[in-house]
């Protein structure tokens, strides 16, 4: 039991259920949060697809970073708080997005609205990971599933932003 608590490391609830169910719950939460927020942009700001594009790109990009980091570094085994890591990755993702918006994607001006939307995507992705945490350490198939969702949202983001 002590060994088990070391792996959960204040991130996921006690694992009384199979990890597969927990992973599915994580994936459903990610997909639902992403779809509901994207739909709210599309429904109320349908004439400005670049807003939802920035949001989806921030959401997908942060999910990508989260999946890669949790697959590669197994932070829980290194006794780093997983929630701390998620928060740090989300904030780093916001900074990276700001840097990209100020350089590569700066077409007319640095638009604070675009920056806020893509950063909000990063925050929602991070909160989703804490609200419905995946089983840790993240197995390869779990990471691949999260990566698939992240790439899907990234593609949608670029499509909406530039179509």
């Amino acid at each position, binding site marked *: *039991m002590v060994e088990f608590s070391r792996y959960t490391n204040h991130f996921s609830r006690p*694992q009384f259920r199979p990890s597969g169910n927990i992973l599915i719950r994580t994936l459903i939460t990610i997909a639902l949060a992403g779809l509901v927020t994207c739909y709210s942009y599309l429904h109320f700001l349908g004439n400005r697809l670049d807003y939802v594009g920035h949001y989806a790109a921030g959401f997908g990009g942060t999910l990508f970073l989260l999946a890669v980091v949790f697959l590669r570094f197994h932070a829980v085994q290194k006794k780093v708080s997983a929630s701390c890591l998620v928060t740090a990755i989300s904030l780093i993702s916001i900074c990276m997005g700001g840097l990209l918006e100020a350089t590569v994607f700066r077409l007319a001006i640095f638009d604070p609205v675009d920056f806020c939307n893509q950063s909000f995507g990063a925050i929602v992705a991070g909160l989703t990971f804490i609200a419905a945490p995946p089983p840790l350490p993240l197995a390869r198939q779990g990471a691949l599933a999260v990566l698939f969702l992240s790439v899907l949202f990234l593609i949608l983001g670029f499509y909406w932003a530039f179509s």
Partner: protein
Amino acid sequence: MGVQLTMRYVAILFGVGILLLTYDLWCTHVRSLIPISMAAEKVVVMETRSEKHPGSDDVCLIRTHSNSFALTYATRHIDSAIHQSLAVGDILNKNAGETFLTVNDEKVALKYSADATGMLRAHAVNGLVLIVLLVLGMMNRTSHVVGSVENKA
């Protein structure tokens, strides 16, 4: 201890999210000029820059200067509807919250753009999603405390 730390991280993410939504709303609403005051500001430069979708997401900028208190310059990103009713040399006056702008001696009606009203509605939904995620995060932490593996160990 760990639970408290996790709560802190959830709170940080939630707080940053709320800040981003608020600032986003401010930026879209201030482009209508309604929330701000202008005291004898003279338009010195007007510019339109193209973005990804020319014609629909153009960036309309004006540069004004005012010498009411000290000589100050300001660059403002404004709605295209207002941009079209201004010209270089115009003197702009208004109080914060007023829905009209005095251009020289004429009054021009102001209204929030479709972007601003749409963003308000979209962020109402997004704020609810943020709250749901916050509650889910808090529930996870609570369930971890009560009867958690750590306690049993």
